[in-house]
C-alpha cells in the first residue's frame, strides 16, 4: 500500500469554459509535472476527450480515470468517475439523450475533441454547458449502476453545487464524497461541512487552466489507483484511507 496524489476533477478543452491550451496531452504532462499519480478528466456532460487523455497517460506514465462532470436538472454538478472509457461513454449516451440545445461558441466557448497527439478531431456542437433534464437522484443511480464513483462538486460554491441548489445533502443520495473547492480553506471547510450525511470531504482543483492542475489535490492510501480502491479509502476499509 502506498500514497497516491490524486486530482480527480480536471477539465479539458472540450469544456466550453476551459482554456484552449487544456488538450488531453497537455493536461497529462502538467499533471506529471505537479507530481500527481492519478487524475480524472471530467468535462461537462461529456467524455469525448477521456480516451485521448487515457492513451496520453498510458504513454507518459500517469494513471488517468474516465470522468464526467454531470449537470442535473436542478443544476447540481456531480463527478462520475470510472476505471474504463466505455463506462463513461455509456453514461454519456444517457446524458446526451436528455441534454437539449446547440452550443454557441461565441457565448459559451469552443468545445474541442482532441486526440492524444494534440490534433483536433472535431468541434462538439451540443450545449454541454446546459443541464441534463434528469433529476439528481437518477443521475447518481445511473453512474453508480455503471460502477462509478460519484462525488458532489464544489459544494462550497454559490452556483451549481448541491448546497446552493438544494440547500442540504439529501439523505438517500448514494454519494461517495463531497468536493470542497480551492476557494474554501480547509479549516473553514471542516467547520462548515464535516459530517454532512457522514460523507468524506475531498479537495480537487476543478482546473480550467493548466496552471491550476493539482492545486489542490487529495492523497489516498491504496493498493492501486482504481475506483474500487478509492471507494474503499473513502469508507476507510481494509487499511485504505484518505490522508
Amino acid at each position, binding site marked *: 500500500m502506498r500514497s497516491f496524489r490524486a486530482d480527480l476533477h480536471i477539465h479539458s478543452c472540450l469544456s466550453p469554459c476551459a482554456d484552449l491550451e487544456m488538450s488531453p496531452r497537455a493536461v497529462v504532462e502538467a499533471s506529471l509535472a505537479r507530481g500527481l499519480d492519478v487524475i480524472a478528466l471530467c468535462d461537462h456532460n461529456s467524455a469525448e476527450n477521456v480516451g485521448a487523455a487515457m492513451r496520453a497517460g498510458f504513454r507518459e506514465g500517469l494513471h488517468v480515470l474516465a470522468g464526467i462532470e454531470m449537470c442535473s*436538472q436542478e*443544476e447540481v454538478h456531480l463527478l462520475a468517475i470510472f476505471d474504463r472509457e466505455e463506462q463513461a461513454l455509456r453514461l454519456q449516451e444517457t446524458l446526451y439523450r436528455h441534454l437539449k440545445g446547440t452550443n*454557441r461558441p461565441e*457565448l*459559451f466557448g469552443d468545445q474541442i475533441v482532441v486526440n492524444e497527439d494534440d490534433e483536433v478531431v472535431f468541434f462538439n456542437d451540443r450545449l454541454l454547458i*446546459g*443541464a441534463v*433534464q434528469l433529476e439528481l437522484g437518477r443521475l447518481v443511480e445511473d453512474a453508480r449502476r455503471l460502477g462509478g464513483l460519484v462525488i458532489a462538486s464544489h459544494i462550497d460554491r*454559490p*452556483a451549481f453545487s448541491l448546497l446552493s441548489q438544494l440547500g442540504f445533502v439529501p439523505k438517500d443520495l448514494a454519494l461517495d464524497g463531497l468536493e470542497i473547492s480551492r476557494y474554501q480553506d480547509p479549516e473553514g471547510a471542516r467547520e462548515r461541512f464535516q459530517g454532512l450525511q457522514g460523507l468524506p470531504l475531498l479537495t480537487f482543483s476543478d482546473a480550467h487552466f493548466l496552471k491550476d492542475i493539482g492545486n489542490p489535490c487529495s492523497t489516498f492510501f491504496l493498493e492501486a489507483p482504481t475506483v474500487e480502491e478509492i471507494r474503499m479509502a473513502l469508507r476507510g476499509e481494509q487499511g485504505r484511507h484518505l490522508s
Partner: protein
Amino acid sequence: MKGAELQKLLGVEVAAGARGLEKEVTSGYCGDLLSDVMANAKEGAIWVTIQSHQNIVAVAVLKRLAAIVLANSRIPDEETRAKAEAEGIPILLSALGAYQIAGRLYELGIGRIEA
C-alpha cells in the same frame, strides 16, 4: 418602457452594462435555474434572479433579454461585471427579494397578462 426609465422608477443601482439600458423592456421573468430561463424567458424581458455567476450574461445575450436584476443584495463577481460590460447587458442591484421586485415591475405595467 426603456431600461433607463425603469431603472430610475425602481430606484436600483446599475452594476454594469449601462449602455444596454437604451433597450426596450417588454416583459419580465423570474428564475434561478439557467436552463429554465433559457427555455422560457422571452426576448426583451427583464430577468430577476439571485444567480450572479457569469453564465447569467451569456443566457441574457442568448435570449436577447433587456436587463438582469439581482435580488436580495446579491453582488456580481468581477467576471460577471466584465462580461456584462462587454456585452452591454445591464445588471441592476436590488436589496428586495424576487417576489417584491416582480411585484413592482408588474405595478409599473411590465409583462401584464392581457385580460
